[in-house]
């Protein structure tokens, strides 16, 4: 039984990472109706920045973490202004293609700047475990869950309790009327991209210690995050986090106890989740079913 709970906790840890990345996807989708295929590569890029600060510029972990978040925020705003805004109102397929282009560019740039070498990243958390009622839980898992949930809570508080957050929600829900009452809609969307990039960076920096840092580090995480977002409902922030946690625990247990799945079939399982949810309940667990106007 102890082994089971251990798997649940480590599933929650990876699940909170999926949830954080899923939430950043949901943020962008809610605000601009775009699915950002480059979200994972943006996170990888941020993680490399943090890694450079730590290894080459003598930063300790947490200051580097914060600097990387700020840089990611600015990067997200910049990407929105430079390439997303011009296509935002056009056909969806053009936006998809632009984010795919971003994926390629960022992935290539990471390889170009930092080479494709796989690098070990030190975890900011102690490598010890803590004993909770016979279950050994690693500090790495606890730290990951804590940082992810903290980021999500801070973001939630920002949207609920600040004027900018209110304006952003207004811009996402009804751009035309938000503009009428004086909200700078376009600026709000750009801030949304910035926040999503920063949240993605959190996911990236927490992923790196357990899987090593490499240019394709976030590709699988991105698929899990897509699955989490779809499972929770692609327009629901709560759903994204819950979907991420469910998926993390589910995949971990599936991999441990079902020999057929093992460690290889996680991605196909996530694909199956995506397809089944989209076909059976496209709104996901927490989304509101959308009524199509004819």
């Amino acid at each position, binding site marked *: 039984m102890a082994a089971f709970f251990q798997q649940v906790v480590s599933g929650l840890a990876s699940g909170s990472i999926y949830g954080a990345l899923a939430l950043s996807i949901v943020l962008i989708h809610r605000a601009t*109706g*775009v*699915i950002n*295929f480059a979200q994972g590569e943006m996170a990888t890029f941020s993680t490399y920045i943090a890694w450079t600060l730590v290894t080459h510029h003598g930063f300790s972990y947490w200051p580097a973490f914060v600097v990387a978040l700020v840089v990611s925020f600015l990067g997200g705003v910049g990407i929105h202004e430079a*390439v997303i805004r*011009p*296509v935002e109102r056009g056909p*969806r*397929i*053009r936006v*998809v*293609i*632009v984010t*795919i*282009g*971003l*994926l*390629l*560019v*960022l*992935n*290539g*740039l*990471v*390889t*170009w*700047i930092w*080479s*494709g070498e796989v690098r070990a990243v030190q975890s900011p958390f102690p490598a010890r475990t803590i004993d909770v009622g016979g279950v050994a839980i690693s500090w790495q898992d606890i730290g990951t869950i804590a940082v992810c949930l903290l980021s999500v809570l801070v973001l939630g508080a920002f949207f609920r309790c600040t004027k900018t957050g209110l304006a952003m929600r207004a811009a996402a829900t009804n751009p035309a009327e938000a503009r009428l009452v004086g909200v700078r809609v376009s600026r709000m969307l750009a801030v949304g991209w910035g926040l999503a990039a920063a949240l993605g960076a959190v996911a990236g920096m927490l992923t790196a210690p357990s899987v090593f840092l490499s*240019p394709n580090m976030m*590709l*699988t995480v*991105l*698929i899990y995050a*897509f*699955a989490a977002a*779809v499972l929770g409902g692609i327009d629901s922030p709560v759903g994204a986090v819950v979907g991420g946690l469910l998926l993390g625990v589910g995949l971990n247990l599936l991999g441990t106890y079902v020999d057929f799945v*093992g460690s*290889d*079939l*996680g*991605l*196909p399982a*996530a*694909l199956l989740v*995506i*397809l089944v949810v*989209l*076909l059976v309940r*496209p709104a996901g667990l927490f989304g509101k079913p959308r009524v199509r106007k*004819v």
Partner: protein
Amino acid sequence: MRREPLRALALFAALAAVVFVLPAFVNDFRAQQFAYVGIYLVALTGLNILTGYAGQISLGHGAFMAIGGYTASILMIDHGVRDIATIPLAIIVTGIAGVLFGLPAARLSGLYLALATFAIAVAAPATIKRFEGFTGGGTGVNLFGIPELTASDAPLQLFGFELDFNNWIYYLSWTIAIAGYVLAWLILRGRTGRAFRAVRDSEIAAVSSGISLTRTKVLAFGISAAYAGAAGALFAVATAFVNPDTFPVTLSIFLLVGIVVSGIGSLQGLVAGAVFIVFMPLWAQTVSKSPGAPFVVYGGVLIVLVLVLPGGVAGLIASARRLTRRRQDFPKP
């Protein structure tokens, strides 16, 4: 205006002639690269039918190529089927796979379809690796020098010509590419093509005109996947080797780049798209030796094209034609 089809036919015949004599003027290595242009042309034709004409985006066409490639390889190595005979079988198998995927996918629209197909592209290599007994796992299937592969050990004698392996692959892939291209043109100019375009432009209007959305989309998926299957089988024959990394997620993305370069929803620029996919990495290597450089160039071109020239090469051709036609409209002073 009556002359237009004739002129198109003449142009097409001239291009086919160029394709036919090209290997005589280039070295073996170039012939191999041009063979790959032919292979990508097959895949791009198929993808453009689905995405450009029927409006269903696919970010996972590399996975259909993988099905074609593995079907051909397994038939050759385990069942002793000759390479030429594996291609129609790969087309059938992949076509069926396309229909089977199309059945659920027809209910997804726009972004969700992009998401699902992207997940397929990412999941494909892991899935192939898992079923080791059937696919050879991570090591893949090595076809090098097996007797089922035409011209692999001795040059092929054909109509009095002697073709070595690369030239044989070149003619094989371009024959299929040209046949596929003509077939696509025939499909798209008739009733089926009109149904595809109707679904793309407005699903509601298409349904009101009595077009079955599911049937049309599933058909588009099937046809498109069959093309990808042919391309995948050719790919396997040409490289004489397949493993899960032969069909990575980037392959699917490169195919998307290819149809954006050639122009989504037009057959005219497809050769340019295929040339771009094959030769771009080489050009990019002159900018930087880093393996990341081609990705940056591919992605950059993709973004710039969507922002500046959404019609791709075909759009360029169309606007050039408009310019010349307008000049003819006015009598010369």
